[in-house]
């Protein structure tokens, strides 16, 4: 399929003379594409956070005028809620965790010169770029963006009579999503092929860093779960634009079908996002504890088992949907079962810290923050996965708080940790530690200030998707908690200012980064910062596993995976 593109991409003479467009915009270099994904994800992230600011303001002070937006109307409320969810999951978490970190790190970590199919890789970025643009355009079409919620349930999203005036917003939502899926599929083909077939000599699968493992499993999950939803998206587009009735009960179809298709993808999707995030945490923890990761193989098996189980849990999103209640029992059991491999992973991560020499650098702070909140997210998943308690908690703010405590630690907090950790490798300069720590404190404290109140609101019976909570008397006692949560969000937003200053100032003015600023062992630190065009001057030979820190009888407390670096370091 793309063999010629490989040959073309690797004829480096052509690369020497390429201009700005080929070098930075239509580049086939995985490092440039990774950075493009990072910038796209950050930009969409700020759009998504702005939307959350609009609806959180409305939730705290219903009916008041939101600064920079104005009064929020009911359709606008549903628009910003829908678009916040869609953007954050499909256009922030996936581009950053898979697109940016996966692209940038997989070839470097396995010791390859580039991805297997560089042009496919470039096409993948520009595909998701088009999808993002379409989704942003949908804000400005008549009727605004989709109002149907990020899960886009039918029949609400199906026929225009239920959401009059939202015709193009809903269509563009579906089209943007299909394009996004196509892009991640292309990326997944590259990730799998590269990590399976292009590893450096000595890089056996049991020497691959955990992040590579997790990106691999995440790609497999995505590729095997998204197909039915792509079919569902096409069917729903046909319903909306052609007039078929794939999901319409009045035409004899079963509306629950959409929920099955959505969650058959949607639940593995949660792990598609969570696993690379946990992978980042697992890369950072050993480096700043100066200890090998605890139970490397056990973590890998836990990831694989969790991946397999993730295909058997989807209907726990549908306990109150009217599906056969007998089905709820097996899905409760599988859902409780999937917490076992994740508990294994979390205990392994905590055990890695045990008696380590911990340095509280910015990446480590973000990794620890992510770990702490992911535990909270995991534990609160148990009452939601259990049929009996879920019937009470379903569609309350408890679900929102649980969901954000799983995805924000992995996608956003761990993602920030990854940015601080690999920034020297990406841009060849160090980031400012003080600004980084301020960023961490604001983000982490603000995050918990938002979502711990939301747990309480949910337990108190506060329903989600309510535009004007002030009209319900039962909501009155819960209202102060909404105010606390919104203040938490404002703290988070304030905390991103030092990040932006740090990110862009360090990119141009930061101190020059050495090849291996953290004394880390994995292969990406065995090459220059930033890496040369084809990553390695000579492809390294891997002689050991990825987390050999503080081995007894060694002069230095880290043993690089690459043989050549080890020899060089031993002299110094």
């Amino acid at each position, binding site marked *: 399929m793309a063999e010629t593109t490989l040959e073309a991409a690797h004829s480096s003479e052509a690369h020497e003379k390429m201009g700005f467009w080929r070098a930075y915009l239509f580049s086939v270099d995985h490092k440039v594409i990774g950075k493009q994904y990072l910038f796209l994800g950050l930009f969409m992230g700020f759009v998504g956070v702005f939307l959350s600011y609009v609806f959180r303001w409305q939730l705290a002070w219903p009916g008041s005028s939101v600064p920079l937006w104005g009064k929020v109307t009911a359709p606008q409320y549903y628009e910003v809620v829908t678009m916040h969810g869609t953007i954050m999951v499909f256009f922030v978490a996936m581009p950053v965790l898979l697109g940016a970190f996966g692209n940038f790190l997989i070839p470097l970590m396995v010791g390859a*010169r580039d991805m297997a199919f560089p042009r496919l890789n470039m096409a993948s970025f520009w595909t998701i770029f088009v999808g993002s643009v379409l989704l942003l355009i949908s804000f400005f079409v008549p009727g605004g963006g989709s109002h149907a919620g990020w899960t886009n349930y039918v029949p609400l999203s199906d026929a225009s009579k239920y959401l009059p005036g939202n015709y193009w917003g809903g269509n563009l939502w579906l089209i943007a999503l299909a394009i996004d899926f196509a892009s991640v599929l292309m990326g997944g083909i590259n990730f799998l092929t590269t990590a399976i077939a292009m*590893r450096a000599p000595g890089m056996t699968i049991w020497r691959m860093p955990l992040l590579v493992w997790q990106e691999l499993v995440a790609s497999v999950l995505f590729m095997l779960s*998204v197909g039915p939803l792509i079919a569902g998206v096409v069917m729903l587009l046909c319903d909306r634009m052609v007039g078929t009735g794939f999901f319409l009960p009045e035409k004899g179809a079963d509306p629950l079908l959409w929920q099955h*298709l959505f969650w058959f993808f949607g639940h593995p999707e949660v792990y598609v996002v969570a696993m690379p995030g946990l992978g980042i945490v697992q890369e950072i923890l050993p480096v700043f504890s100066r200890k090998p990761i605890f139970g490397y193989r056990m973590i890998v098996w836990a990831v694989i088992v969790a991946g397999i189980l993730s295909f058997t849990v989807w209907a726990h999103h549908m306990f109150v949907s009217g599906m056969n209640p007998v089905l709820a029992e097996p899905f409760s059991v599988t859902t409780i079962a999937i917490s076992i491999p994740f508990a294994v992973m979390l205990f392994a991560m905590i055990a890695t810290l045990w008696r380590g020499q911990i340095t509280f650098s910015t990446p480590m702070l973000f990794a620890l923050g992510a770990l702490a909140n992911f535990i909270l997210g995991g534990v609160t998943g148990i009452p939601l996965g259990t049929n009996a308690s879920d019937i009470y908690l379903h569609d309350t703010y408890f679900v929102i708080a649980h969901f954000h405590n799983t995805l924000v630690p992995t996608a956003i907090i761990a993602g920030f940790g990854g940015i601080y950790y690999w920034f020297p490798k990406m841009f060849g300069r160090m980031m400012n530690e003080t600004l980084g720590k301020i960023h961490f404190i604001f983000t982490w404290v603000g995050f918990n200030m938002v979502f711990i109140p939301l747990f309480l609101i949910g337990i108190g019976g506060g329903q989600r998707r309510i535009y004007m909570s002030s009209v319900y008397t039962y909501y009155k006692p819960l209202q102060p908690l909404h105010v606390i949560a919104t203040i938490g969000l404002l703290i988070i937003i304030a905390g991103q200012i030092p990040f932006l200053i740090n990110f862009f100032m360090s990119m141009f003015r930061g101190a020059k980064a050495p090849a291996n600023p953290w004394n880390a062992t994995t292969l990406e630190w065995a090459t220059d910062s930033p890496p040369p065009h084809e990553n390695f001057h000579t492809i390294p030979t891997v002689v050991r596993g990825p987390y050999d820190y503080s081995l007894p009888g060694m002069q230095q407390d880290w043993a690089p995976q690459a043989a050549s670096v080890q020899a060089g370091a031993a002299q110094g």
Partner: protein
Amino acid sequence: MANSAVEIGISHAPHEVETSFEIGKLGMWVFLAGETMLFGGLMCVFVLEWIYHGGWGADGAHVNWPLGAINTFVLFTSSLTAALAQGAARVHDSARAKRYLSAAALLGVLFLIIKAFEYAGDYHEGFTPLAALFWSFYYLMTGLHVLHLLGGIVVMFGLALMVNPRTPASWLERKLKYICLYWYFVETVWILLFALVYLAPAAG
């Protein structure tokens, strides 16, 4: 950015490691795994709605299965010629490989022509995509298959045009391996569709 890798004159083979995987083939298999879930998901949905409906009844009885059977034969023959093209490339006979490859693509075109007549016939009898849920599924599933076929035909004709007497046999063999893998997949999908969307509903 100075390319010091060039200065020190190292090899630029993309995969310098002796892994036993052929990356193009592996990439194609991964792609087909995703495709399997796409068609597999659709087929599962079709069967579930079928059960939900308690059969397709009169709608399904009108499906034009004789034309579908002829098309199955055409696609089988196309796969045979594709396999013969692979065999010819293996013994370094590029000219013969080119002829067989063109034949495979032309048989694909024949399939599309027959399919077009079938669609037109169904449509004129009033079985439009909006006629009933069965026909919505019928057009969606066969239409998606036609799109896959169309992509394969374009690539096969493109490859056949690129073959000339100077074409390296190993290059052609490799390319044929990837496109034929895809072509056999599309054919397998058709066999399942033929059983599911033609034979079973026609049998009641």
